[in-house]
């Protein structure tokens, strides 16, 4: 059996006396879409921050395995190293580089896959010129794939909301991840935009052969997208399984879904 793309084992995160995550176990298989749900303050974003290196977990391990079987332990790595290992993320509140153009935003995503240093930047040997040209071309291709090429020279802050969300995913994909973490990608979207997002995520998995872990409150989206769902509350996992299993689980209904279960 192949290794899961992401394996979180016994992850614990304390903030002073507060235990935000309590011995949490979670796996994301290769090319699997896994959703993480739970009430507000359950520790979902904390988990994301532990996985991506923004927080250093108190206990437990995070392991990342690429499709060709290389495993990396992520604990204690800084966020940029984690990204270099092949994991990218988006943010709950959009964090684009507002005063940079759409193309530049994606070019930043290419940063960790190119090499030019200070001497290269100043002397511009042919290698650097080629690299820069390649970066612009690659970034434009990514924008085309995400249907954002019409905005290419627009400042990121001037984009409509849905396009900003898409740009954030495009920027993350520019780092060539094999695992993508999406933090509430549908937040603030209307029904039509959410449907488009649904298609986009499925398309992402098919095109790039990536695994996806997402946090989402929109149950309709979660139920239709995910292969498996994890439910957390107060930093503990209270249920896991396929969408059907989870939606029938009495603990989940009690803690979170309530009467929304058949919605």
């Amino acid at each position, binding site marked *: 059996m192949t290794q899961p793309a992401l394996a979180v084992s016994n992850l614990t995160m304390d903030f002073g006396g507060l235990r935000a995550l309590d011995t949490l176990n979670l796996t994301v298989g290769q090319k699997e879409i896994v959703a993480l749900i739970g009430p507000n303050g359950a520790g979902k974003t904390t988990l994301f921050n532990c996985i991506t290196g923004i927080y250093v977990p108190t206990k437990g391990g995070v392991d990342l395995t690429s499709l060709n079987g290389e495993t990396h332990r992520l604990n204690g790595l800084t*966020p940029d190293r984690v990204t270099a290992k092949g994991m990218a993320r988006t943010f709950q509140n959009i964090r684009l580089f507002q*005063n940079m153009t759409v193309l530049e935003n994606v070019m930043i995503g290419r940063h960790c896959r190119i090499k030019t240093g200070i001497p290269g930047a100043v002397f511009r040997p042919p290698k650097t010129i080629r690299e820069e040209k390649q970066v612009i071309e690659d970034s434009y291709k990514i924008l085309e794939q995400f249907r954002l090429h019409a905005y290419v020279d627009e400042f990121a802050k001037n984009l409509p909301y849905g396009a900003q969300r898409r740009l954030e995913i495009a920027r993350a994909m520019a780092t060539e991840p094999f695992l993508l973490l999406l933090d509430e990608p549908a937040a603030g979207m209307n029904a039509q935009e959410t449907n488009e997002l649904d298609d986009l995520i499925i398309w992402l998995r098919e095109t790039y052969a990536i695994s996806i872990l997402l946090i989402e409150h929109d149950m309709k989206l979660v139920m239709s997208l995910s292969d498996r769902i994890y439910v957390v509350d107060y930093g503990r996992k209270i249920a896991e399984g396929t969408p059907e299993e989870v939606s029938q689980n009495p603990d989940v209904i009690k803690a979170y879904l309530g009467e929304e279960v058949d919605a």
Partner: protein
Amino acid sequence: MSDIVRDKGLFSWEEVKKSLLACVWFMFLTFPIMVIQVNTIHRTVEWKWDRMVFVGVGAFLLSFVWRYMIRRKEAGIKQKEADADNVKTLPQKLITDPKFSRPALAIVGVFFIVYPLLFSLYQIDIMTTALIYVVVALGLNIVIGLAGLLDLGYVAFFAVGAYCYALLNYHFGMGFWICLPIGGALGFIFGVLLGFPVLRLRGDYLAIVTLGFGEIIRLILENWNEFSFGPSGIANIPRPGLFGIEMSLSQNLTYIYYLMILLTLFTIFVVRRLQDSRIGRAWMALREDEIACQAMGINKTRTKLSAFALGATWAGMGGVVFAAKTTFINPASFTIWESVIILCCVVLGGMGSIVGVIAGALILKLLPEYFRAFSEYRMLAFGAVLVLMMVFRPGGIISDVRKVYKFEK
């Protein structure tokens, strides 16, 4: 929204009323000091009502003009929003339009080349000083304008460069041309040294720590007599030489002038290339959003340190030239005030914009020299200009026109 502004017009009864109110309020506030004059010799009280009239009229006019400008600005912003496009300001348009910028560049180039032939030694001297500030301000522009790190102790690196040349020359007799790269390298090293402790800081906290760093360097220079000769400074620093050719004072000053022109061109060249590179993009991303920038795989530590170090390099080199030009340095040349001036060059000129920073540095260093007759009011005018600039043109004289990456098929 803009319709409302247009309907009411820029002058309205409402505005007059508000200005009248400000004027009455001012008359009331200044009444005790302006109107009541106690004559202590004759033991009488004089009532100078005429002054009250002046205050009132002055306050009314100032307030009215102020309001008018604010309203005009707001109308302008709304207009801009309505247009929804990236409206460029006039100087930006002129710079980006090659029809204007090419001849302008040629004229400026010729002007700077023939400058020493046209003007007196004094003029050459102040222009050289201004060019040193251009180089140093361009260095600070990397730190503040590109990477968004507010550094208030920048003059410390300038001092490092100046003392590097002065001391190396005093103890080992090393020449200017060897010391110039050493000064730059030492600036780089000190930039990294300062960078390490402030990696976690940003915004106000960073400003305070860098301010402290600048003061520490100055105090060390002032108090460590054995090392830096204390407040009396170091005199008789040789001017830069050229293959051992003997030069008169005026020739030498002209020589330093051309040397500064070359150094300025070199700085512009390097800073521009850095700005339009992978490193420059990383700096801008760091300025925009630190967390997102890390999540995109940019090493925060390395990016911050490189910004500090590369900025400080120019200050170090500027310091070496400064020491060689003035032939005398002491810690009084490197006070916090100098940091503030350099910072003002960057902010006033336009953060992140190379042309803007050059303009800012030239204006701030040259104008006070030409207006020596009004030197008592210099600070007053300086303060007023800063306030007005921040209100009406927060982007600086020539705000940033970045090279926008274009995709060509």
